[in-house]
């Protein structure tokens, strides 16, 4: 249900403004109407924002992400020690962080430069390793070796032309000396090593340059007297860089562990202070020596708020409150408060716009119908037990509220799955029947398909009519004539259609046909009143929505058949390892499909078929002006 809210105005004297704002911040109950326009930035705000951004940058540079680990105690402890009362405090903190920031910057710079070096060394090492033997052999023969980078397509022609050129410096009796070795790189590039006699060195180098070749050198830091010496230096550097990178990573890890939580706490506190300053600037109205701060709070905590404020400020504060008028409903923030067994189902509303204050909270209806539909689709005692264990584990082991809520929803689904499992007589398919002669209480759904289909369509009729009825009530409550008339017309036409169908089957006396026609006429007249065509389309859509509930039977049937197929593997292959393994694999697949499919389709039935009949959304979420709590799920802005 949606919590009743009251408008509260807190009046005080200007000298106590800071203390009252801080107390309201501590209480964390008041939702303030802060305009979306950004506040005018004072020097104090600018300094704090800069410090906050610097700290956030440092946290991100450190790679620390465990925001959920910040405990309330850590926040409370630091809050008592650091107070951002003046720009001098902010400057002092910024200065004290400067040394660490510089050290972190240097470490990260070195790391990034070493990574770049390692990448280039890796390429160079690859080339050097390839040519090393060739170079050693040729140098030992007293030849001059040079390495060139050139286009792969032209390197064969270049070699033959170079051979012709070298004839000039070679006596006619002997063949020109030219040895070469090449390797192709990607992008049509090749590295070519050529070895010539010392007298041909200059000719070879000039020619290679003319043909577009670029001399290849090892990186500067590994340059030696000759290429072979450079390769040695390269090997040494290649083994040193990863070691240095490892030591930098270890140092960063130490910094992350040591500084990450402290910086995060500091960032939380800066955000809190910024919130307070923003509130003082935008939400507090001053009039002479007085000020007033207004906002919304849940009616149930009004007494606590007034008692705490009066206790602290005694007669120096005036608190006024009133319930919102109907003209104000669109401004009132929405807070949900449901019984503990329904609360986990509030997650379904997180995918929709926030409900408006004057709207109905559908959480209770979702909590009733969602597990019922999903359980009907799964309908197996064995799967229900596994789902129950899974849900229990999620609730017990997960820290995040979202996963615990999902765990609770799965437990509800498991309960209804067990109920339907008894009705359909299923325990891991037909295993229950084989082992303990389990019989269905209602029908065996793989055999009696039509009754299950009819039942699921019946569920659709009830669910869709309920949605339309809620929409009708909503229209009446808000004096929205179009809405209530259209929903009523839909209800009447669907009822008339059902009566007519039942009459055709011969299950009702003839007089009911007249009743059906009368209801249809009333429904059509109402549709004429609200715009005939649109209303008629809506009615046809609602009939389509009802038929959509047939998926409950269809998905359930496919799940039941798959479970039976799994057991048949043991029949076909005997009680062997392969037979049992295949049976378990199919059951596991079926279980995953059953949990995911039933949840997804039951959710879809709610979002599309049910909530579409009355839910509009577009409200404001209740966000009290509160301190950051480590226990709250908090998202960085």
């Amino acid at each position, binding site marked *: 249900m949606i919590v009743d809210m009251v408008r509260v105005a807190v009046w005080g004297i200007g000298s106590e403004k800071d203390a009252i704002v801080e107390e309201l911040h501590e209480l964390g109950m008041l939702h303030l109407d802060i305009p979306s326009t950004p506040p005018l930035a004072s020097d104090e705000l600018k300094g704090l924002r800069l410090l906050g951004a610097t700290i956030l940058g440092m946290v991100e540079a450190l790679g620390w992400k465990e925001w959920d680990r910040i405990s309330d105690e850590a926040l409370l402890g630091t809050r008592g020690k650091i107070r951002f009362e003046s720009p001098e405090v902010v400057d002092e903190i910024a200065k004290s962080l400067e040394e660490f920031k510089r050290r972190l910057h240097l470490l990260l710079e070195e790391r990034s430069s070493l990574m770049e070096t390692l990448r280039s060394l890796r390429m160079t090492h690859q080339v050097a390793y390839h040519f090393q033997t060739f170079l050693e052999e040729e140098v030992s023969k007293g030849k001059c070796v040079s390495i060139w980078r050139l286009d792969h397509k032209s390197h064969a022609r270049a070699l033959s032309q170079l051979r012709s050129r070298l004839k000039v410096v070679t006596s006619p009796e002997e063949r020109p000396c030219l040895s070469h070795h090449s390797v192709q790189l990607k992008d049509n590039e090749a590295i070519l090593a050529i070895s010539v006699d010392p007298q041909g060195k200059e000719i070879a180098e000039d020619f290679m340059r003319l043909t577009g070749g670029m001399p290849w050198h090892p990186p500067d830091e590994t340059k030696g007297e000759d290429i072979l010496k450079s390769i040695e230096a390269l090997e040494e550097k290649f083994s040193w860089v990863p070691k240095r990178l490892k030591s930098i990573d270890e140092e960063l890890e130490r910094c992350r562990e040591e500084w990450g939580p402290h910086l995060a706490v500091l960032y939380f506190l800066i955000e809190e202070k910024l919130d307070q300053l923003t509130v003082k600037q935008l939400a507090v109205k001053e009039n002479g020596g007085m000020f007033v701060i207004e906002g919304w709070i849940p009616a149930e905590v009004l007494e606590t708020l007034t008692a705490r404020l009066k206790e602290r400020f005694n007669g120096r504060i005036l608190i006024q409150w009133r319930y919102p008028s109907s003209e104000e409903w669109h401004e009132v923030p929405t807070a949900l408060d449901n019984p503990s067994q329904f609360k986990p189902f509030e997650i379904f509303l*997180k*995918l929709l716009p926030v409900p408006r204050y004057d709207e109905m909270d559908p959480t209770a209806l979702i909590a009733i119908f969602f597990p019922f539909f999903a359980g009907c689709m799964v309908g197996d005692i064995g799967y229900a037990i596994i789902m129950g264990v899974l849900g229990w584990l999620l609730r017990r082991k997960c820290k995040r509220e979202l996963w615990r809520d999902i765990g609770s929803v799965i437990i509800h689904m498991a309960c209804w799955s067990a109920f339907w499992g008894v009705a359909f007589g299923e325990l891991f398919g037909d295993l229950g029947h084989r082992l303990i002669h389990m019989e269905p209480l209602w029908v065996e759904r793989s055999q009696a*398909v*039509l009754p299950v*289909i009819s039942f699921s369509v019946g569920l659709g009729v009830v669910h869709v009519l309920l949605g339309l009825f809620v929409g009708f009530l909503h229209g009446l409550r808000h004096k929205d004539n179009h809405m209530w008339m259209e929903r009523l017309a839909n209800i009447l036409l669907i009822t008339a259609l059902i009566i007519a169908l039942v009459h055709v089957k011969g299950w009702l006396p003839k007089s009911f046909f007249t009743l059906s026609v009368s209801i249809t006429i009333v429904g059509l007249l109402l549709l004429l009143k609200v715009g005939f065509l649109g209303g008629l389309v809506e009615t046809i859509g609602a009939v389509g929505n009802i*038929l*959509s509930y*047939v*998926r409950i*039977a*269809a*998905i359930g*049937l*496919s799940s039941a058949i798959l479970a039976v197929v799994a057991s048949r593997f043991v029949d076909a292959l005997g009680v062997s390892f392969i037979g049992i393994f295949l049976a378990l694999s199919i059951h596991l697949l079926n279980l995953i499909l059953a949990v995911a499919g039933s949840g*997804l*389709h039951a*959710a*879809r039935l709610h*979002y*599309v078929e049910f909530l579409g009949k009355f839910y509009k959304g577009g409200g404001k979420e209740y966000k009290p002006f509160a301190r950051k709590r480590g226990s709250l799920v908090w998202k960085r802005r």
Partner: protein
Amino acid sequence: MEKALIALAAALAVSIPALATAYAQARIGSAGAGTVAEKPETAGTMIILEAIPETMVILGFVVAIMLILQFA
């Protein structure tokens, strides 16, 4: 022969909507992946949208079952 035709009709009742569903889900899936990459908070909505075209194949499946039960 009659049974073969009924079986063929049932197979078509499932397979044609299945192809249409697959096509629709592929299009929704690629658009959804792009949306989730930009706004991760829309992941839940995208999963629901992905399930919407399945209505076609589910209704096709039911029609196939009805065909087999009524005529086979």
